[in-house]
């Protein structure tokens, strides 16, 4: 009779960017099941959001997560605008799309870099993060900050971007594309990388749908689901289609992210080509009243905001369901039956953002 041992993976682990503990039940070297223990970075942001008025909440919501921060404030602003019946002007919608896609690019570069670091390929990790610095410079030049952009506001955007700055963003993208063409073949075709990633952490399409997988985790298992095709912000004028792979292992998830990187490059170029002139925000005087649900596509999947207002400055309830929160049950399904050495690669391949999960 084999005896089961329980080993804690985390919360401090060299592979994890943020603390989460997984209690792995092991039989010799094979994982039988895993129990997640979260709560290491719970900050109580939903409670804090009820203490501040809805205009100050825009700055609080950005700080839920550092990697997907602009899209959090975009979803919140879209929800409040829906409640108050405002429509931002077209130039603001295009600027929001440009910043969202730049955010998506820097997030995917971060995620693939961390994945390379997870199996020890530090050279590729450094090279990918060096490419990411070009995008952070583009964001600092257009908005004033590298990570917490602070430009999305209710009714539009706060800061306009001049023609020369947009041209300089296009020049940065040419450099980024050249560096991507050099590094991505290494990530996708190298023999040692494929040995670590192909066939590891397989997620079946039916299991992924039932357990509620979202984002690249779901698209790598064959589910074609991408909220950008619904046409919020200015996505209705640009052509977006979900990038789908069918294998469901770590290699497929990485390939989806690489293809989305090239897709985001194209989307930014299209948006800069089509951006109209005009005002950048609409003034308003009303207060939020009623219930609304707004959703958007973050780099990790679908984010859902539930907002309830009662006609005063303070919101009555603000609820956030982030994509990593929904991806935890699929990870437990992926871990059953894998080897102990593959646990790090599997957990990083869903791109966990634990500070989003716990708020």
């Amino acid at each position, binding site marked *: 009779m084999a005896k089961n041992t329980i080993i804690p993976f985390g919360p401090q682990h060299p592979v994890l960017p943020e603390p989460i503990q997984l209690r792995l039940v092991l039989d010799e070297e094979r994982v039988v099941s895993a129990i997640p223990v979260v709560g290491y970075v719970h900050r109580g942001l939903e409670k804090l959001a009820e203490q501040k008025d809805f205009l100050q909440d825009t700055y609080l919501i950005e700080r839920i997560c550092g990697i997907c921060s602009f899209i959090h404030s975009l979803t919140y602003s879209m929800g409040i605008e829906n409640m108050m019946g405002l429509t931002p002007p077209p130039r603001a919608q295009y600027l929001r799309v440009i910043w969202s896609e730049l955010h998506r690019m820097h997030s995917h570069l971060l995620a693939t870099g961390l994945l390379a670091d997870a199996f020890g390929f530090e050279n590729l990790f450094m090279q990918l993060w060096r490419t990411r610095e070009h995008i952070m410079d583009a964001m600092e030049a257009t908005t004033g900050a590298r990570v917490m952009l602070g430009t999305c506001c209710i009714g539009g955007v706060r800061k306009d971007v001049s023609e020369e700055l947009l041209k300089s963003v296009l020049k940065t993208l040419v450099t980024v594309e050249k560096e991507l063409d050099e590094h991505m073949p290494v990530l996708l075709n190298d023999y040692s990388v494929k040995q670590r990633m192909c066939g590891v952490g397989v997620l079946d399409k039916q299991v992924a749908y039932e357990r509620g997988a979202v984002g690249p985790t779901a698209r790598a298992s064959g589910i074609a689901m991408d909220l950008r095709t619904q046409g919020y912000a200015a996505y209705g004028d640009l052509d977006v289609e979900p990038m789908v792979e069918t294998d469901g292992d770590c290699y497929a998830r990485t390939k989806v992210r690489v293809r989305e990187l090239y897709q985001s490059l194209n989307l930014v170029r299209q948006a800069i080509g089509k951006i109209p002139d005009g005002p950048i925000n609409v003034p308003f005087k009303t207060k939020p009243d009623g219930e609304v649900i707004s959703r958007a596509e973050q780099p990790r999947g679908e984010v859902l905001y539930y907002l309830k207002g009662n006609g005063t400055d303070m919101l009555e309830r603000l609820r956030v369901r982030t994509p990593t929160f929904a991806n935890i*049950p699929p990870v437990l399904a992926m871990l059953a039956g894998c080897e102990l050495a593959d646990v790090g690669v599997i957990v990083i391949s869903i791109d966990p953002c634990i500070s989003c999960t716990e708020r």
Partner: protein
Amino acid sequence: MINNVENITVDNLLDKVASKMPLGFRFVTMTCVDCGEHFDILYHFDKNYELSNFRLSLKKGESLPSISGLIFAALVVENEIQDLFGVKVTGLVLDYEGRFLLTETAPERPLCRVPGVMMVEAGKPAEAAEVK
């Protein structure tokens, strides 16, 4: 306003949820709102980018039957509601008993309004160093 909301009760909760799954709906999340005398618990389902919701009114003190036997993904949200609002959820597949997000020294039921935790420091401006 949210469209597509159906009101249900505690008794027909499990039947209604079980009827959604064979139709191809995907479970998205649950939301709990404190409305003073009762809790409003909303269940969100999605199919082809269309949301369809259930609303359940739960009196304070009543317990909520869990749907994690039917939908495994719901256990994460139900444990969180148990921690933050103090709602007792029965029949969970994996029960953390109030320690999913909060630790032993954290305030009890922080998001529940009455009785709950009120933040006393809100609105107090800074008193520290002068600007240079």
